[in-house]
């Protein structure tokens, strides 16, 4: 059954008012040649039946008892207050705030979100949200091309491959060429993007250099030097960051980033098999008119009451159509609200605790594996909360442990053939000492 409230009598009354005999008459304008006869879909389910079906599917998943899997998506504590706020129907069952007089809740919360992202990144302006970190990065590259009038982008191979694949798809549209800056993945190498490697690739027609901090291997990149290198070639610096790391790592604004893109999932959003998440984007005020996505600004009404509106809409598709900065319309507002609530709930101290605990447990697991003689760090550079470990016969052991409900991180060989037998292990504040022990024991048992 549908959620329609109409009784047979209601329907009769409406049909009579319209002046047709049956509802079929309202579909008579569909040409007979292409009119569907129906469809073969399953029968309706009652609430208890549909709950059983969804519980069955949820039960088919085996959520690991121990997981060191990250690679762009991280299991963090989602404070109860976050779900309470985003679960409010006033937020969740409204839409894009086209009528600001009855949308001040959504608008002010987006303004607060923009403010929080600016503060976290050290940038001057942040957009209201993008689909995810990968599309935010791709849109940042297109924005850099519009700002510089150039048609080539340079990207470090230590940027998450998921992000680079989306970047490639977006750039294929307008025919923008991508050039790669190889990270040092040699044996005994740093795992980082060397500024001189970037300098060799950056030609005088590159719109931007895209580097990730911490990079896909967890390594801490020399972002200030990379930004200087980019600027020296007349290119913009696009920094892809992980938001919780910004409690400990320098704000991109402080090292000369021109555009910042990030996956906001770690800020109070569950992994949920890949989405919905929220893409963050921040930039300098001077480039705001080339920024894609919605922006909320403060203003006032005729009685001197402060209020918020969607603003600078001349960038957007519903006004500019084919001349818009992007086609983005529906974004990820409720996930942005989750992120704003999360950042407000944890505060500066809480975010630092999350980052510190995550970094400490990542060092703990690396040290424990090394101490047990089961593997060693693949790269020499300092890292944040994710670490690449060389483990002999990694693929087999990873698969065996998965069967036991232990996910030994992310095997890097698929994306980086030169990194055979390398596992990327992520820790968060939810990683316990017992998790570390279970992983070490598991790796030992599969030797």
């Amino acid at each position: 059954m549908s959620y329609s409230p109409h009784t047979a009598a209601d329907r009769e009354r409406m049909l009579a008012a319209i002046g047709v005999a049956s509802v079929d008459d309202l579909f008579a304008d569909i040409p007979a040649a292409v009119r569907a006869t129906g469809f073969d879909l399953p029968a309706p389910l009652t609430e208890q039946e549909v709950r059983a079906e969804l519980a069955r599917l949820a039960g088919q998943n085996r959520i690991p008892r121990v997981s060191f899997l990250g690679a762009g998506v991280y299991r963090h504590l989602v404070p109860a207050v976050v779900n309470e706020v985003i679960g409010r129907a006033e937020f969740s069952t409204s839409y894009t705030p086209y009528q600001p007089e009855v949308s001040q809740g959504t608008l002010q919360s987006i303004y607060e979100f923009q403010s929080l992202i600016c503060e976290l990144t050290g940038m001057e302006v942040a957009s209201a949200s993008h689909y995810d970190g990968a599309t935010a990065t791709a849109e940042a590259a297109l924005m850099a091309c519009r700002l510089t009038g150039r048609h080539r982008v340079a990207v470090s191979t230590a940027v998450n491959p998921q992000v680079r694949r989306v970047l490639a798809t977006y750039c294929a549209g307008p025919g923008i060429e991508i050039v790669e800056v190889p990270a040092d993945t040699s044996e005994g190498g740093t795992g980082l993007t060397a500024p001189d490697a970037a300098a060799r690739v950056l030609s005088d027609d590159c719109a931007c250099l895209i580097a990730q901090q911490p990079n896909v291997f967890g390594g801490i990149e020399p972002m200030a030097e990379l930004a200087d290198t980019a600027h020296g070639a007349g290119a913009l610096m696009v920094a892809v960051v992980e938001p919780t790391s910004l409690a400990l790592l320098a704000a991109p604004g402080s090292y000369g980033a021109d555009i910042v893109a990030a996956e906001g999932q770690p800020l109070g959003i569950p992994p949920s098999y890949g989405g919905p998440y929220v893409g963050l984007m921040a930039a300098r005020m001077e480039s705001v008119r080339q920024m894609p996505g919605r922006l909320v600004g403060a203003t006032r009404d005729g009685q001197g009451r402060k209020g918020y509106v969607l603003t600078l809409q001349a960038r957007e598709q519903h006004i500019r159509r084919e001349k818009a900065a992007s086609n983005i319309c529906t974004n990820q507002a409720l996930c942005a609200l989750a992120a704003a609530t999360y950042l407000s709930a944890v505060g500066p101290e809480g975010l630092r605790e999350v980052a510190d605990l995550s970094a400490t447990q990542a060092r703990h697991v690396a040290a424990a594996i090394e101490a047990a003689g089961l593997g060693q760090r693949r790269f020499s550079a300092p890292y944040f909360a994710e670490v690449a470990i060389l483990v002999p016969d990694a693929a087999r052991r990873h698969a065996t442990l998965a069967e036991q409900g232990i996910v030994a991180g992310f095997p890097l060989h698929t994306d980086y053939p030169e990194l055979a037998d390398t596992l990327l292990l992520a820790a968060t504040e939810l990683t316990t000492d017992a998790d570390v022990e279970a992983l070490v024991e598991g790796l030992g048992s599969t030797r």
Partner: protein
Amino acid sequence: MSVLERPATGDASGRGAAFTSPEAGDELTIIEPLIFDSSRPGRRAVRFPLPSSAARAAAGGQPSIPEAAARAEAPRLPEVAELDLLRHFNRLSHLNHAIELGFYPLGSCTMKYNPKVNEWAARLPGLADSHPLDPDPLAQGSLELEWLLAELLKEMSGFAAISLQPAAGAHGELTGLLMTRAYHRSRGEGEQRTKVLVPDSSHGTNPATATMVGYTAVTIPSNARGGIDLDALRAALGPDTAALMITNPSTLGIFEDQIDQVVAAVKEAGAIAYMDGANLNAILGRFRPGEAGFDVMHFNLHKTFSTPHGGGGPGAGPIGVSERLAPFLPTPQPLLVAGDPAEVRRNAWSGRPTPGARFALEEPGARETSIGKVRAFTGNFGMFVRAYTYIRSNGGDGLREVSNDAVLAANYLRVRLSDAFDLPYDRICKHEVVFSGRRQKRQHGVTTLDIAKAILDHRIHPPTIYFPLIVEEALMIEPTETESLETLDAFVEIMHGIASQAETAPDELKQAPLTTPVGRLDEAAAARRPDLRHDFATESTGATG
């Protein structure tokens, strides 16, 4: 999706009341202070444990973060107690209109009821805690759900294949046009086909998407009956046409009654037929675009399949495609790698697992023809859970009833309101009906913006206004199937009241809204002097109102 509202001010046409800005220096009345205003050093909502001594000791031997890369000053995030945090967001929420508070006939957005059981399902730990890179053997439930949802969407739409990956309708458009280009290139016609045709009634996303893909958008006029002008379309189609993007039912709420000829003409020109599926809620069980010859369509799960709109997202914009576009679908696809598809479907429809069935994500690089990835992982999975729950709850019979009742309600409003407002296209509509406020504007100087603001005072969200662009002073009303007859009748009465008020007291309407948390806001000032973030330098004094 693309809902239009022109700026309320800075318009010499006389639309809306002239905005009178308060004197400079006037103190602002604050409805709800910013979260930053209640921040006091040392306040906390959430605390985390300290690292254990074992962890600290082990970590000591590892490299630490170099000073050059460390943050100099902590970010000035708010420091608030949990109750104050909740009160802040709860008070903010009270400033919103929402489906669960009242009628929301925002045309083109399908603001139907978002069932609670869908939310329950999306929060099941077995689904919400599933990591997108978990090995396939651990993610069989997520993969099966995606595969089943794709099967349901295929059956509903008549398409050969589905990609769930696009995150919203406009993202589905981008995906569809990228595939269009890949298709033409595969036939050696990539250079030659450079134009995308869009009707003048189209969503703004359609031409914006064409540009993003490197195509040129060409506008095709509508005919006097509100459909696409077939002669103009035929004249525009040629060897340089990449695709036609057409919304059906159109943004006028009208089914293209020559759709078979439209599709035939596009196919004959060797172009791709793209259907914008934003208005699918009108035609479930009545029209299957794939069967009718379309090559590609995006679904808006947040419209037709009831996932909550969230104040502007997240949505989900899966696409269905024809056989000839299938090789170009984004990667990775969820696949059934062991088991008979018919048996797996049959079992799932009876709530049973299929012994021996196994699902897997397509390997990276397995399909060289793919356009690649349009977002990370496989899509907005949480929306898939809700849409799947909704489709299974309704079943085939329920979904047919959805469209029947949505169309019934829109036609009821069409007939009941046609005495009060001009109806530029007076014919049977589908899920929405577009009126014009031109009579009110010409005779009484009352604009559609004034009418919309007056509706706000009745605790109803106004229809979409000033869209589609081809209707003067447009009012686009989409009641959806979940509003009772009493709600519809009350709306009719309110709209009649506003129409009479336009005749008798037009100046009163120009003052509206009077009962909302704020009145009409100075949008021109917001754009002229952008204030897009909290300024820590000017500490707020807190609430004054």
